[in-house]
């Protein structure tokens, strides 16, 4: 059994209102020096019998919207 860890994030240049709000919240806790916060999605897919290309296709077709989002993933054994 394999595990794909998939990270979907908003593209650079796309305003992330959630990130902006979270940044303000962090700062309100007294932390200084926060440059930027971006909020994204994390997904885990457990699978068998598929290759890397299939995961790539899933990201392209469904899991990320290429107009606003980037994605990356890593594949490893289920531990």
């Amino acid at each position, binding site marked *: 059994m394999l595990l794909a860890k998939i990270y979907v994030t*908003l593209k650079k*240049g*796309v*305003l992330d*209102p*959630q990130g902006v*709000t979270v940044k303000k919240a962090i700062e309100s806790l007294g932390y200084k020096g926060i440059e930027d916060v971006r909020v994204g999605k994390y997904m885990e897919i457990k699978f068998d019998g598929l290759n890397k290309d299939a995961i790539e296709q899933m990201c392209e077709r*469904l*899991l990320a*919207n290429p*107009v*606003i989002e980037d994605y990356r993933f890593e594949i490893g054994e289920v531990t």
Partner: protein
Amino acid sequence: MKWGVVVFPGSNCDHDCYWVLKHVFAQEVDYIWHKESRVEGYDCIILPGGFSYGDYLRTGAIARFSKVMLGIEKFANRGGLVLGICNGFQILLEAGFLPGAMLRNKNLNFICKYVTIRVENDQTPFTNITSQDRVLNIPIAHMEGNYYADKTMVEELNRNNQVIFRYSSIDGRCTNEVNPNGSVDNIAGICNREGNILGMMPHPERCTEKRLGSEDGKVIFESILRWLGNGVR
């Protein structure tokens, strides 16, 4: 004239659209279940508002793979009129029928209120009985209505007169202050290059009867009726 209103799991403005067509405009109208892959015999198909598939992953991201979308693609390619309202607009974007994408509203809130929008193009099947610069009083109700397209795409939309509505003040000024959700260029509705597919965030089906506060939504349906009646298809 025959209309179809698509029903996805989680659609909730389907009944409003049906009501308006049937009872306000006395039209023949069918619900079309999302598993239907053949959509034939219709003049205009509406993708209604709601929360198809619970808005999981992204709004419209799952609904776009419904069987019915294959039929709608064929219908639209033949020049059939498709109107996506709110979640329907989001589905059209995810399906790539219209360019761009929706982001979470800038203030992160679900916004449910009346806004004013300015008609930018009165030459479309959906706006032909109104006039450019006319301001419509119409409700919005969404969490992801912050329309995004990159600079090049926005320029192209503007150049081709594909922006149909913009959020504006009552006197038609499109400023940041009257942009409810952060949409780029105050965009509230766009059409495809061919002009037969319109996506809009505001809900015309919620304002076609005086007792509901505004009748401004009527112009969309009346425009479509006139367009179809003229046989300009």
